[in-house]
C-alpha cells in the first residue's frame, strides 16, 4: 500500500509542483497576491485570456460603473487602467455582442451597478458570433483548482519565461506585419466577411438586448449604447456590401434602447484620418481616445 501511495505521488509530482508554482506566481492575480506587476499582468495574462483577466479584476474592484465592449472599447477604456475614473473597463478583445450581454448579466448578478456604457457594433451583430467565454471563466472563478490548472496559466508562464530568456519584449497577439499590409488584409477580410455567408443578422440578440434595457430600467441603471468609429474604408465596405442590414441594425438599436442613450460616433470626422488609427478598426490617437472616453462616460 505504501509503495502504491509513494508511486502515485511520484507520478503526480510534476503536476503538483506546477500547481504550487502557479499558486505562488498567480499570473492573473486570482488570489490577490500575484508576483507579477500590473504591467506584466496586462502584457501577458490579459492577451492570453482576456475574459478571465477582466473577471478576476472585476471581482477585486468595487467600481460600479462599467465599460463593456470589444477591443475597440478596450482601446478607449485602457485610459481607465492608468487614470482615476469611476469606470471599470470590462471590455476585452475578441468579445462578440453575445459575450458582451453575458458580461452585463454577470456583472449585475454580482453587485449593484449604477451605470453601463455598452458598445454596439454592426460586425458583431451577427448570429454566427454567438460564442461566449463567460460561463467558462465563471466556473474558473468559482473553483481554485480549475484556475490553477487552467491552460492559460501555463501559456502565461511559458511566454514570460521565454521572453526573459531571450530578452524579447512582450508581444503576445501582436501583428507581425507593417501597417499598410495589415490594413489591406483587414479590408479584404471585411469584404469577404460581408460577401460570404459569415454574416447572419442577429435577431436573437435583439431579444437579449431588450431584456438588458428592461433590466436597467427596472433597477435604475443608467445605460448608454455607443457605436464607436471605425475607419471610413471599413464603413464604406459595410455600406456597400451590407448596407440594408446596417441600416436595419441602426434602426433596431434605436428601437430597442428605450430610455437608454445612443451615442453614434460612426460618422465622426476622425474616420477619414488614417493616421489616427493603428488599423482600420482601432483608434490609436490619444487625444481622440480621450475625447471619446469623456463623451461616452459623460453621456454626450
Amino acid at each position, binding site marked *: 500500500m505504501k*509503495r*502504491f501511495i509513494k*508511486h502515485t505521488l511520484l*507520478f503526480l509530482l510534476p503536476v503538483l509542483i506546477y500547481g504550487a508554482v502557479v499558486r505562488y506566481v498567480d499570473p492573473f492575480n486570482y488570489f490577490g497576491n500575484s508576483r507579477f506587476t500590473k504591467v506584466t499582468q496586462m502584457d501577458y495574462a490579459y492577451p492570453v485570456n482576456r475574459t478571465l483577466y477582466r473577471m478576476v479584476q472585476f471581482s477585486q474592484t468595487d467600481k460600479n460603473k462599467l465599460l463593456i465592449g470589444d477591443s475597440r472599447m478596450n482601446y478607449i477604456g485602457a485610459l481607465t487602467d492608468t487614470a482615476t475614473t469611476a469606470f471599470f473597463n470590462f471590455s476585452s478583445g475578441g468579445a462578440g455582442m453575445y459575450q458582451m450581454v453575458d458580461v452585463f448579466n454577470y456583472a449585475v448578478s454580482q453587485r449593484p451597478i449604477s451605470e453601463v456604457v455598452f458598445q454596439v457594433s454592426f460586425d458583431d451583430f451577427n448570429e454566427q458570433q454567438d*460564442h461566449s467565454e463567460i460561463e467558462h471563466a465563471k*466556473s474558473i472563478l468559482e*473553483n481554485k483548482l*480549475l484556475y490553477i*490548472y487552467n491552460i492559460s496559466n501555463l501559456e502565461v508562464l511559458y511566454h514570460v519565461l521565454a521572453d526573459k530568456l531571450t530578452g524579447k519584449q512582450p508581444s503576445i497577439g501582436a501583428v507581425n506585419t507593417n501597417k499598410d499590409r495589415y490594413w489591406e488584409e483587414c479590408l479584404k477580410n471585411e469584404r469577404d466577411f460581408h460577401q460570404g*455567408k459569415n454574416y447572419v443578422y442577429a435577431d436573437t440578440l435583439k431579444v437579449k438586448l431588450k431584456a438588458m434595457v428592461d433590466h436597467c430600467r427596472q433597477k435604475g441603471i443608467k445605460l448608454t449604447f455607443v457605436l464607436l468609429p471605425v475607419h471610413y474604408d471599413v464603413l464604406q465596405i459595410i455600406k456597400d456590401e451590407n448596407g440594408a442590414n446596417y441600416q436595419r441594425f441602426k434602426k433596431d438599436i434605436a428601437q430597442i434602447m428605450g430610455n437608454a442613450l445612443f451615442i453614434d460616433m460612426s460618422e465622426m470626422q476622425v474616420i477619414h484620418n488614417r493616421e489616427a488609427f493603428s488599423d482600420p478598426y482601432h483608434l490609436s490617437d490619444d487625444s481622440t481616445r480621450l475625447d471619446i472616453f469623456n463623451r461616452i462616460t459623460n453621456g454626450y
Partner: protein
Amino acid sequence: MLFNSLEFILFLPLVFALYWLIGSKRVKAQNLLLLVASYAFYGWWDPRFLILIAISTLVDYWAGLQIDQTPDKGKKKPFLWISVGVNIGILGFFKYYNFFVDSWIDAWGALGYEMSPSTLNIILPVGISFYTFQTLSYTIDIYHGKVKPTRDVISFAAFVSFFPQLVAGPIERASKLLPQLLNPRKFDYNQAVIGGKLLLLGFFKKVVIADRLAVYVDAGFENMGSIAAIPALLVVLLFAFQLYCDFSGYSDIAVGVAKMFGIELSINFLYPFFSKSLVDLWKRWHITLFSWFRDYIYIPLGGSKRGKYKTAENILIVFLISGLWHGASWTFVLFGLVHGVLYLPYFFSKRKKQESASLLINGLKIVATFCLFTLTLGLFRSPDFETAGIFYRKIITLSQYSFHISEVVYQLREVVESGVALATILGLIVFLLVFEWATMQGKLPLKKYRFGEVLIYQAMLYLIVFYGVFNNSSFIYFQF
C-alpha cells in the same frame, strides 16, 4: 456525483484510504463503508432517488431468500414475479410512463380521436436501467439455482449500489461480484497500478476527447437542417467517437476504481472499433448489457435452438428491447430494429467461421463495419425522426455534396470553428486508436520500456489536467 467532478477527486482518495485502513480482515466494515460511500455518491445528485435503490435492494434481498427457502419450484415463482414486477414496475414508471402515454395519445390521434394528455413531470433517476438489471439478475439466478442468496443485507446492498459501476455499468452478475464482496479482499499493488492506469485512460477518453467532441456534435445536430452533407457526416463520425469515449471511458474508470478496491469488474468494451462485422461489434460493445440480454431474454425465448425463423425472431426481439432500453423514444426502438435487421445476414452467414488472414481484407472489413455502425448512429443521436430524416436525406442525396476544397472548408467551419481544434481532436483520436490497436495486438512493449510507459501515461495526465473539459458534463449513458 460525477467521476469528472472535483468532488470525486476528493471523494475517491478519502474512501480508498478509509477502506484499506479498515483492513481486509473486517469485510463487513469494509462493505458498510462501500455502502455508505455508494449512497453518498448517488445521493450527491439527488438523495430522493436513493429510496428507489433501497426498495429494489430490500425487495430482491427478501425475494432471493424466499425463493431459496421454498422447495417447490412452482411456489418459488410468485416471489420471482414480485421481484421482476417491482423492478420492472419502477423502471417502467420512471423511464417509460410518459413515452407510452404519449405514444398512446399519438396513436389514437392518428386514427382521428383526440385525447387529453395526462403525462407526468417525471425525472429519470440516473442509472436506473443499470442497477435494475443488475439486481434483477440476482433473483432470476437464484430461481434457476445458479446463485445462492446471501443473508448479509449490507453486502447485498453494497452489491446493488457499488459506486464505481452504479450509474452506468458494467452490469455485474451476483455470481461474479457478490462473492468478491462476501470474501476478504487483499490490497494488490499490481492490480491497483492497473486500476490507476485504467482510471487515467478513462478520464482521458471522457474529459479530453468525448467532452471536446460534444461541443461540435451538439452544435451539428442542433443545426442539422442548415449544415451541408459533408459536415453532417463529420458530425456523426465525431459522435461515434464521442459515444465510445464517453461510455467506454466511464467503464474504464469504473473497472479501474474497483481494482483499486480489490474488486474485479467485467470488461464492457473490447476494442469495438476494430470489429470485422456487426456480430463481432456487438460482442465487443457494451458487453455486459448484451450478455444480460442473451442470458435473460434470448436464451429463455429459445435462443437459436428452435430453427432459423424463431432464431431470427428472437434476435429481433432482443435488439428491439435493447433499443428501448437505451431510451424512451421511437428513434431508439428503430435503431435497435435496424441493428437487428443488419445483424441477421451476418449471423446466418455460412462463411462466418472463415477468418481471412489478409491484412487488406481485414482492414476493409473493419472500415466497413465502422462506417455502417457510424451511419446508424445518426438515428441514435437524433432527438426525433425529423432530425434523423434530415440527416439521412442529406447524406443520401448526392446533390447535397460539394467537393470543391474551399467550399468544403467553408462548410466544415459551420461545425468546427477552428481547423487547429479539429486537427488536434482528430490527432488525439488517432492516438487513442493506435494505443488501443497496439494494446489489442499485444504490441505495446510497455513492460519492456517502463520509461516509455510512464511518458505515455504522463502525457495523458497532462492532457487531462490542461486540455480536459471540467464543466460537470454528465456521461451520455447516465440517461439510459
